[in-house]
């Protein structure tokens, strides 16, 4: 057995909002690790700090304190972003949302290819990779359609393709199955898991949907800003 490749390492991430009477500690000293190819579910009631953790991992809001490494690169040190956060997001992070959030004026193929072109991947190479991932997610035949011409499931698959096409270290999924029926929701979770294993991405899924929890490798629970990752152990993943 070899050591797992750690996609994410977080140490003592804390975040507060407000001052004085309105002071709220949204995240308290969160420390965890997620390995490449691992799917982790983040569970917790509303206002527990799930979104705060998600925005910190997504480099949207910086924490007050703590250290974060994604894909072996320090991205937050002592609560401050290190380097070009846009560049890090472009290369190391992928996002899937409750709604597909595809850009309405781009076709399915363009929505996916955009992520590669933003990172200056040559057009020919970007096209090849885009077609490949759309085929693997079974939506290649809808490549030239605008989002409004796709079904909800097709939109979500295109969104997953967009989130994974640049082979990010960490894929953040915020309630990706909430707007889908049970069967489709489970199919999306399966796609995320398969894609994570095949492409070596760590997946953190924020969800209230307990129906697909059997597909995740670990569960993080968060309440009142306290992340419980104690019970889980990093699974063994071969290189």
């Amino acid at each position, binding site marked *: 057995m070899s050591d797992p490749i750690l996609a994410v390492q977080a140490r003592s991430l804390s975040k507060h909002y407000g001052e004085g009477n309105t002071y709220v500690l949204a995240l308290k000293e969160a420390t965890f690790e997620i390995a490449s190819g691992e799917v982790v579910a983040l569970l917790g009631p509303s206002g527990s700090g799930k979104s705060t953790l998600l925005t910190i991992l*997504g480099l949207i809001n910086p924490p007050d304190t703590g250290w974060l490494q994604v894909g072996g690169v320090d991205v937050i040190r002592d609560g401050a972003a290190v380097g070009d956060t846009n560049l890090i997001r472009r290369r190391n992070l992928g996002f899937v*949302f409750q*709604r597909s959030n595809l850009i*309405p*004026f781009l076709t399915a193929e363009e929505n996916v290819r*955009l*992520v590669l072109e*933003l990172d200056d991947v040559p057009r020919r190479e970007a096209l090849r990779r885009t077609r490949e991932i759309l085929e693997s997610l079974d939506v290649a035949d809808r490549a030239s359609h*605008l989002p409004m011409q796709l079904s909800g499931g097709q939109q979500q698959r295109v969104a997953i393709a967009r989130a994974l096409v640049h082979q990010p270290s960490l894929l953040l999924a915020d309630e990706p199955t909430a707007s889908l029926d049970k069967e489709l929701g489970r199919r999306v979770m399966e796609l995320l898991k398969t894609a994570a294993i095949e492409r070596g991405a760590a997946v953190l899924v924020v969800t209230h949907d307990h129906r697909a929890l059997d597909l995740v490798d670990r569960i993080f629970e968060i309440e009142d800003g306290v992340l419980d990752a104690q019970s889980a152990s990093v699974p063994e993943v071969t290189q």
Partner: protein
Amino acid sequence: MNLSLRDVRHDFSRFLLTAVGLGLLLTVVLAMTGIYNGIIKDATALPDSLGADLWIVQRDTRGPFAELSRVSNDLEERARAVPGVARARSYVAHTIQRQLPNGRPLRFTAVGLSWPDDLGRSLPIVRGRPLAQPHYECLVDSSLGLSLGQRIPLGRDVYTVVGITDGLLASGGDPSAFFTLSDAQRIQNDVSNEAIRLDREARSARVRQSALGRDPELVRFSGKNARLIPALAPLPVSAVMLNLEPGVSLETVQARLQGWQDITVYSQEEEHGLILGGVVEKTRRQIGLFRGLLVVISAILMGLIIYTMTVDKIHSIALLKLLGAPMSVILGMILEEALLLGGIAYVLAVMIGNFAFDIFPRRVVVENEHRLALLFIVTAISIASSAIGMKKALAADPNEVLAA
């Protein structure tokens, strides 16, 4: 991947409709510029085509274009005797509004040319010939809509159109028509038989009531045709145009003539100044103000359009930020759309102008320099209005995507 083109493609009909609306507004801006230039060209076309070096007008007036001027008929002879003067011509002009036998209204400025010295050869005659006989011929501007050989009854006489000029309008925008001096005066002073009879009666009565009335011969003469009475002065003219001999100093001749106490002398350049500073000045300011307002309105509208277009896709912009798109990509998209909108509107304005300006009732003069100036204004407006959209885009929060 060009995001701006894809965004435009997504709702092309709305974008095109907006561009057409803006294009029409820019057409009006261009038209205002053209109308202003046309007014200047119209106002100066006539004096320019007559080709005088100096204009002699009534003392202390700014005639003959900016103000009414009357000088005596013999001034032409006096001026001709001044050393350095090669040519002196009388000039009269007055506006006529009559009706052709077919009922069509006819309004023009009748200009009198000194016969036989000035046959209208200096005028831009595009068809026909200059005047060739001392009476009953005329040259008319093409905008009057008359044809060669057409006969126009004016007063007691009928005049034949022998030549057509192009682009000779008076400062009021009326087409010019050229007659011999005596014909122009005849048309101007044409009155009815009854009016003539009453005028002669009144003149005789005045003579009888004065000491002159003791002479029965004088009383008899006073009731005859005014031209037969040597004591009565011939009709005045509006001005006298002078051309100088080659090499003669204009300032010297002008200074010499200024010594005459009954007249004022202007150079051609000074006449331009009087026309533009007097007749055209208020129009110029009014059109300039109107044009400025239209530019401001265009800028505001374009700013609002770009702002609305940005707001419409603010979620996509927030998403682009979340995906790590550099700000240059997002701001570039907004700027490109603004420039594209401005560019299409500009091209439409120029194209519509090329077709429409010819059918305007007044001359619209739009040169390449004016089109370039508008292009510069449109570019500036596009950049300024995109700044409003950019400000909105900069404020877009990637959190909105997560919160949605």
